[in-house]
């Protein structure tokens, strides 16, 4: 029977702690930047897909379909290995030599993948708002932008928040794919420690718990945001007695 001696002191050794903390920081940065960028991309793609013009709508729909039907890992590899080759030689060379290019590739790959899914969520959320709300806003003389900011988005965001939170958690977990381009994030750090110490179980246990804690934290923060938004929208105005249903 295979015998394995657990040595939990490994996870407390300063050089490994530094590696894990450094990796975790990069993972969080990847998740935060790609999360924000994917939201912007998703909103743009959703707006294009809701456009009455087929010239705008069709390419946007095609792009989303292509992105969604290709593995997330492919996009990270594409931006890291393929894109510099497609560029003019000096630019490609500069990209290869740029120390942060692995991080940028990771951000771009994760963003385009997550953005495609978010565009679906945002588009469906907007489409669920009753037509009468748009008509009332137009009837009041609001511009399309005002209608979107003051009428459609506040209502649809509340409905979409759970689905957006799911995607953001997914995006956080997908950062581990960046190990494929040797980006020193959390999974890469785990692998490094394992290859040095041959004590994979302890380190993997720590990174597993870290991923779980990170995912739960993101879900918690977004659910709090969602709850705050709901509370704000149902909160009675200052100095006024709210109705029972609005409490």
């Amino acid at each position, binding site marked *: 029977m295979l015998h394995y001696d657990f040595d939990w002191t490994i996870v407390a050794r300063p050089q490994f702690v530094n590696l894990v903390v450094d990796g975790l920081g990069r993972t969080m940065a990847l998740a935060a930047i790609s999360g924000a960028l994917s939201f912007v991309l998703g909103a743009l793609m959703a707006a294009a897909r809701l456009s009455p013009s087929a010239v705008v709508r069709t390419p946007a729909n095609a792009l989303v379909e292509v992105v969604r039907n290709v593995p997330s890992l492919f996009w990270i590899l594409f931006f890291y290995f393929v894109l510099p080759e497609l560029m003019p030689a000096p630019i490609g060379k500069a990209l290869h030599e740029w120390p942060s290019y692995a991080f940028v590739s990771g951000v771009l790959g994760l963003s385009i993948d997550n953005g495609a899914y978010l565009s679906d969520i945002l588009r469906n959320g907007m489409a669920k708002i*009753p037509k*009468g*709300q748009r*008509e*009332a*806003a*137009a*009837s*009041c*003389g*609001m*511009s*399309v932008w*005002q209608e979107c900011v*003051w*009428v459609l988005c*506040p*209502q649809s965001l*509340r409905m979409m928040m759970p689905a957006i939170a799911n995607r953001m958690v997914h995006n956080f977990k997908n950062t581990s794919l960046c190990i494929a381009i040797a980006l020193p994030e959390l999974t890469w750090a785990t692998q490094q420690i394992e290859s040095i110490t041959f004590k994979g179980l302890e380190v993997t246990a720590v990174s597993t718990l870290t991923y779980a804690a990170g995912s739960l934290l993101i879900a918690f923060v977004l659910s709090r945001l969602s709850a705050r938004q709901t509370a704000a*929208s*149902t909160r*009675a*105005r200052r100095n*006024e*007695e*709210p*109705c*029972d*249903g*609005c409490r």
Partner: protein
Amino acid sequence: MIDCKSVFKRLAGRNVLAGADMRVARGEILVLCGPSGAGKTTLLRAINGLEPIDDGSITVADQLVWPSRKGARGLKGKVGMLFQHFNLFEHLCALDNICLAPRQVLGISKVEAERRGRELLAHLGLEDKAAHHPSHLSGGEKQRVALARCLAMQPAVMLLDEPTSALDPARTTQIVELVGRLKSDNVATVIVTHDQQFAYRVADRMVSLNSGRLVDLEHERSCCEPAAHPSRRAGDSRAPSLQAA
């Protein structure tokens, strides 16, 4: 103020509007009657730029609504429309429903918009409902909040689609008085209603929409009209201006 010329609109293979002509002057109250499905709401929506028409033209407050690409947005809130299903903004309380467009479209300050919003709510007997969301208002309350939202924009034209459908007789009288104030303020008003008594009380002119065309009902009205409510008379001192509110 409203000028519809030979308006045609086809819906579901049927000519809902087949050459409808209509003119409403400043301060005039026109009641539009007709059976369900005759196209009354379609005509109101077309006047407000929400429903494109197939042929003809609609001009409102010297602005061409159809044919035009801008539709309702081109009118910039000059037309207030009370929708049949109210269409209140569900995420906002009653006061915010009223204040949103004046603040965003007319650029009125928050304090001024709220002052005016509260006055309108008080006019309509809803002063204690300012903080309530539409989901916690009754049908009649929603209807009055929707009306206040229209009035807050100080429109030149009001389109009221079944304004008394959710109201009891006392509230209906309140709406009659309010329509009288609109007349005093020179607002051109078109009212779609099935409530004959209400129609007789408020109308300057009544027309019926039959087979897509508008037919004047003056004769019918003169035979059946009960005494008009005093507050509808233009310039009546008991009818305080809503525009000044």
